[in-house]
Every structure is written in C-alpha cells, then in structure tokens.
C-alpha cells in the first residue's frame, strides 16, 4: 500500500470510487497474459487528461513508479508493475471524441477498445486496419504502447502507420501534443513513432488521432492445405515474392490445425501438414485476378486442397477460430509459451525448419502459427512450469529460437513487444551503443525512472 500521505494527496484529485487498494483488488492488476506477476500498491482509474497529469505530478514528487494499463492482454508482461507503485488503468477513460471520415481520422481516448473503433466506423463504410487477435478486449492505449499489429497488417501496416497525433502526459505531469490531423506532417521529430512501442516507459497517452480507411469493396478468403510444412512456407515466399499483396496470409501447422479443428469443428483437414489462410480485399476484378495467381502459386507448391469461404459467416468462423488459437493452445497444457520472432519473408521456410528442429532437439512439442506474409512467427510450446526439467528445456529452446531469428536477419518481436519477456535478448539484435541511445532518451524524459520501470532491461 502507498504511504498514507501520498494516498491522501491522490485522493484530493481522484474520486475515491476510482481508487483501489484492497489486497483482493490489487491481486487483479498483478498480471497480464504473460506468466509473471507483481502486485501494485494502488490502482487508479482516471477519466481526464488533467487527472492523469495530477497523478504524475504527485508520483514524480514522491518518486512512485507509475505503470499504465489498458486491458492487460499484453503477452510480454508489459503492464506488470514489477517495481510496484501505481497502476493507472485506462479502462474508464473510453470515449470516442470525434469520427471524421471526410478527413479520414478518428479521435479517441486511450481506453477505447479496438473493436469499438471498428463498430463506430462501420456505419460510415470505414475501418481502422490494425486488428490484433485481442481486438475485442485490448485498448488503443495498449495497442499504441505495443505498436500492435494483426493479420491484415501485411497489406495495411501496423499501429504506427495509423497514429497521426498524440496527447501525452510526461513523467513530470506536463502535457504535450504532437502530430496533427494531417496525413502529411513534417514539423520536427516524428514523435508519434517514438511513442509507438514504447510500452508506457516514456509517457502516458491520453488522446490519439488515428488514420482510418474506407472499407474494401470485396473480401475473398481462401483456405489452402498442404501435405508438407516446408511446401507451405515456400508458397508464402513465392506469393509475396511475385508482387501480390494479400490483406492477410496466416500459416498454421498440423498441431495448430488439429487444435483449432477440435475446438471449433470447422471441417478442417487434420491430416494436412500445413495450411494457409489467405485473404484478399479491394476491387472485385483485382481480387479475382490475384486469386487466380495465388491459386497457381499454391498449386505449384503442392497444395492438396483449396477452398474458398462461401459466406460471410463461414469467413467469420474461420477468423474467430484463428483468433482463439492462443487460448485453444492453452488448453493443451498448464502453461503455454508463445513468442513472435520475425524474419524477412524469404527466410520463412528456413525459420520454420529451425523452429521444428530446435523443439525436436529439446524433446518439446511445438505449434507453428504465423502471420506468414510478413514473416511474423508465433511458435507456441505447451509446457508445465512445475516440471523443472521441461521448463529448463523450454527456456533453452527459446534462447536458440531467438538466436536463429537473429542469424536470419530477423528480429525478436513482430508485434508483442519486449516487456519482461525479452529484454535479455536485446543484444542479439542491437549493439550496445544503440541500447545506450534508448537509455539516453529514457533518462531525458523520465529522469527518476518512474514510468513503467523494469522494462527494456
């Protein structure tokens, strides 16, 4: 619990109904979807930028750590308050402030859930492209802080490509605004990029201007099966290499397919060794043409079965099952370890072979699921932390998976972020001077290290 004096000061600016510090409540803010936990001392639900600013002024005066939280769906421990202190939870600061499809932007508070943005835009025939699997729960604040991506980001780009402007409260409590309602804007440093993916370590986002796009005229969805995983991966490389740009291209291996089929009964062929879920969108004629090209390419790579979703509900079912894959995997064992190493798309087949070989070496099961079109892999290893020996092998396997990705010009994370999970691997992909440069930035904006301390090493 916080010092009585600090608590009293906070309560002068925050309605006590929005301040929690009972042990039962604190226990509910100690986790996200990652395996570790750490308790905060207090949880506050701000509703305005001024309240956030007030909280940070008090926190910086007393040097109390402050960790922002959206919906707690991070899978890398980003919102876990490892150094305790205050959780500033944005779930109640969730108003959509402006929908302007003429100028193609939407202005939202950080607690707005991604799916609610889609709902607000749909009647106007618009959408917000980043679509993380957690979109029905995760907040925009969390999406920005993790620079979230999703299946259709292959074609459309990730969160950073859609943030036009931000209002941010700094550690000192000062409120800054940068960017604008304009797609083109070169006034100073591109600070929106700096804040995307900063995991709440540089400042707290209190408002965002996001770019939106008109909904495509048509969408076509294909499920393709292969009897060989390597062929599946090569088909991906071939399609992307030939210049076609599907909206999404998801790869699933046999273990993933089986798990999804068992849970959702979609009629997927469980004997297939690999499969691709491909989605095209845009103008009808263009989709038709690309569809033909894709079918050619997958056939060249030995596709055994090709099926087009014949209704919107069938398409929705496939995607719902795909989004639930992580949870479905969680059924298989007490703990599930999932990573998101990413490699250039031409290296996808090599990376998948590596993952399979490493899991085999350490006698582990592995499911390979990937946003394959952009080289973003999600190897998932079901395990049991209580089994000391196995847990040790899992850790070893992930060490090697990260090394392999780095050797293939890849990177540690395509979308999940670093958080607690991956900070020790940073040296694999950046030199010490680069890491130091990030530290200089952090020190400059948050000299007392009160914003989400303990992340990024």
């Amino acid at each position, binding site marked *: 619990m916080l010092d009585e004096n600090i608590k009293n000061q906070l309560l002068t600016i925050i309605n006590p109904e929005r301040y*929690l510090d009972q*042990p039962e409540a604190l226990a509910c803010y100690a986790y996200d979807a990652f395996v570790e936990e750490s308790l905060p001392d207090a949880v506050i639900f701000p509703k305005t930028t001024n309240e956030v600013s007030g909280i940070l002024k008090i926190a910086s005066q007393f040097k109390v750590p402050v960790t922002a939280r959206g919906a707690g769906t991070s899978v890398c421990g980003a919102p876990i308050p490892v150094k305790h202190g205050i959780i500033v939870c944005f779930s109640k600061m969730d108003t959509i402030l402006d929908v302007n499809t003429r100028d193609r932007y939407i202005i939202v508070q950080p607690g707005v859930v991604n*799916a609610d943005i889609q709902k607000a835009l749909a009647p106007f025939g618009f959408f917000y492209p980043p679509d993380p699997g957690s979109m029905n729960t995760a907040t925009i604040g969390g999406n920005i802080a993790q620079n979230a991506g999703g299946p259709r980001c292959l074609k459309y780009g990730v969160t950073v490509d859609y943030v036009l402007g931000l209002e941010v409260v700094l550690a000192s409590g000062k409120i800054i605004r940068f960017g604008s309602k304009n797609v083109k804007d070169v006034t100073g440093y591109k600070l929106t990029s700096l804040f995307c993916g900063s995991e709440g370590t540089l400042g707290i986002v209190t408002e965002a201007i996001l770019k939106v796009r008109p909904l495509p005229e048509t969408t076509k969805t294909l499920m393709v099966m292969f009897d060989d995983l390597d062929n599946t991966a090569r088909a991906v490389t071939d399609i992307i290499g030939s210049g076609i740009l599907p909206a999404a291209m998801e790869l699933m291996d046999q273990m993933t397919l089986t798990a999804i089929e068992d849970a959702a009964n979609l009629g997927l062929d469980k004997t297939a060794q690999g499969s691709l879920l491909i989605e095209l969108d845009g103008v009808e004629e263009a989709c038709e043409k690309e569809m033909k090209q894709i079918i050619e390419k997958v056939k060249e790579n030995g596709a055994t079965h090709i099926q087009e979703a014949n209704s919107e509900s069938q398409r929705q079912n496939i995607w719902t099952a795909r989004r639930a894959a992580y*949870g479905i995997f969680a059924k*298989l064992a007490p703990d599930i370890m999932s990573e998101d190493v990413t490699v250039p798309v031409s290296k996808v087949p090599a990376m998948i072979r590596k993952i399979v070989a490493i899991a085999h070496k350490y006698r582990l099961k592995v499911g390979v699921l990937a946003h394959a079109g952009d080289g973003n892999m999600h190897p998932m290893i079901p395990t049991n932390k209580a089994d000391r020996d196995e847990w040790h092998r899992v850790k070893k396997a992930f060490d090697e998976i990260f090394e392999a990705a780095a050797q293939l010009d890849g990177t540690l994370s395509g979308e999940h972020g670093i958080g607690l999970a991956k900070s020790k691997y940073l040296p694999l992909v950046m030199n010490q001077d680069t890491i130091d440069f990030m530290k200089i930035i952090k020190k400059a904006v948050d000299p007392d290290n009160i914003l989400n301390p303990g992340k990024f090493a």
Partner: protein
Amino acid sequence: MTPKVPPNCGKCGLCLNVCPVYKQMKEEQASPRARMQLIRAHKNQTIASSPYLKEIMSKCLMCGSCTANCPSGIDHYSAFMKMREQMAEDHGEPAAVKSLIYLLARDYRTRWGSTLARTGQKLLPKKIAESYKLGNIALKNMPRLNAVPFRNTCEEIILPDTQKPDRQKPDTPKTDTKWQNIQRQGSDKETGTVAYFTGCATNYIYDDVGLATVGILKRMGYKIIIPKNQTCCSIPLLFHGAKKQAQKNIETNIEALKGLKVDAILVDCSTCGEALKHIYPSFFNKNDPASHHAIAIAQKIGDVLSFIDDHFDRLTFNASPKEKPVVTYHAPCHSKNSFQSHTTIENLIKKLPFVIYKKTCDTEECCGGGGTFFYEFPKVSKEMTDKKINNAKAIHATQWLTDCPVCRMNLSGNLKKEDNLIIKHPLSLIYSALKPL
C-alpha cells in the same frame, strides 16, 4: 491431444468483453479472468477469505457468457459455485438472500412463503408499498403472486384437446375463466406425450406462462404430464452456495421425472433447462444411480419455444390486426449461453404473422437482473437495465418479449408507465393469437 490436467486460465483476457459486469464496471476485478485468478490465489493462500472477496465473487450474474467464449475451456460455472459455497460458509449471506434459499429449499416452504408474501403485498399500506424498494424495483412494480400456485390448478395428466370439452377439472374456482378457455380448445389427433417442468416462476408468479404452455401444447395435440412432485430446480441455491439444500431438490426432481415415457421434457425457463440439462448429470458421482437417471432425463430436456418452432405448422392464428404491433426480443443469458435457444426463439417470433419484429442494437446483452444480482448490486444492475430500456424504446416497440422470469421481473420492474412498453413471455403472445377451433 487430450489435456492431462484440468485446463488452466491462460489469462488471455478474451472473456473480459463478453462479461456484462466487466463491460459495465470496466474494472478488472469485476471480470471472469480476475475471479478465476482470485480463486487460484485463495486456494494457494496468497489471498485470504474476506467479505470483500465474497463481494467480488457474488458480483457476477452467473450468466455463463465467460464459459461460452473461453477458448481454453475453463469451467467457470463449477469453479464459481464452489467458491460461492465457501464464501457463504465463511461469511454468511445477507438476510434476504438467506430467506430466499430457505424458501426455495423445500417446495412447501415456497408455497407457504408465497402466501405470506402475497398477504404482505396486500396488507402493506399503499404509501409504504410505493416507497419500498427491492433493489431498484419499487415493491408496487413487483409482480403479483399467482392466486393459487399454477400446479395446484391443473391435473397431473392433461389430455390433448379434442372437439368436445374434456373433463380435466382444475381445482380452481369456477370463475377462473382462463381455465375454461383452455378446456374448450381442441385438436383432433393425439400427437404424442410431453412432460412439463414448470419451474418456480410459473408456479408462483407467472401462471400466464403455464396456461399458455398447456394451451398451446394441447392444441398441438400433445398429452401433457405435469409431475406433481417437481420442485425448484435449485439453481438459485447453487448460486448462493447452498449445496446441501440443492441436493435434496435435485433428488426430488430426478425422482419426479425419471422413467417417464415421454417424447420430451419441456421447460419454459432456460435457467431450469440449464440445471436439468447440464448441471444434474454431473452433480452426482458416476456410480450413483441418480447420475444415470439424470443423464437420461437430460437427453429429453428441451425448451417449449424451440419445441413449438419444430411443430409450427400445427398452429393456426387469428386474422392479423390491421395495425400490427411492433415487438422486440430480449435474449436471456441462459437462453444464449447454456441453452443456446435464443436464435431459434428470435426466428420463431419473426415468423409470427400478427406482429412486426424489430431487433434492438443490444438484443443479446444482459439486462442486469441475474437471479438476485439486481437486489445485491442495484447500482450496476440499474445502469445495465436502463441501457436496455432506452434501446428498446429507440425502436418504438410496444411489446418486449423475453423467456426468462428474472429478466421479465427486472425489466418490467424498471419500466415506467410513460415508457409505453409491456413485457411478455413469447408463449403468452403466441397463445393469445391462437385461432379457436
């Protein structure tokens, strides 16, 4: 691959935005994920039992949305019930909830209680009745209790309608025209036999639903068995941690329903349905004979509305009025999550030739009633209910159909006269439009 251990909550958070309480409160501790984590922490003794922990566990509608949407296959229901039992043991229940359990525990007590309550409703000075509230619901807006419990008004076996009035006398006063009307309807052929589990709500509060059910089924040519010894399905008891009392009721009901030679055992309330179909079969040890009976019974359980939908062509309706009323539907959580009958019911309503069906933007959202939730947590409940009411008003519906007695009580209790909306069970609407033979 089969899991070697009971599934673990992976903390993915996918259940947050399907939980009506989380959506309203927007606080993690109000979410299914948090409840699962707290149960684990309590088991590991990192969180002690406390009245606040009990409050967190009770601030849940037991609506089943989390279970229906959890990709990891977590059985929240069983976990919550066990924890509620523990919490009730540690900290007791509020007096009002306690007396509810006491009443529902044995049917004769319910009978006795409802007589008392009815007298209370009558005797209470008007002024007090107007200002006294149960949760958000003013006492004057609470439903009146049935003059005589529904099951006392009918024979245990009711023959299908024939052209001539039959002899099943109800032991109700001669003046009860409702029954005389039912007796007069007829259908030529006997189509089959069904059993009817009436539930407490129909028996003590909403006999219009019972009358409609019997009236429609008779018309469809079914012989109806209403086993006399049935009692409360025991869901309210289980939700409040009164497992021992619940077991007695479950045994009584199994005894009353086992071995019946019927095509189906029908319920008019999906919560009773959930109990009979999903909870009874796993309540007893596998080797217990009660378990076998429960499984056999569960296979026959269905809801009346889906049953009617299956045999819709057996019904003929009065000529439609010139100006058809606009009706809408509220899908009760249990119809949606455990009984999955809500789409069938909605489609059935759409098929009715004498109304115009309009959907609200939140047909599937919870109304905030949830057993005793509206009573225990009036503030959150009220916010949820008001949202629903405003959305139903927005489409200018005049009749609001719902197939759960608690939703009905909660919604109608919160409606104001000027809202110009009446709440009905879909069965009553269908029954009122049947063409006399």
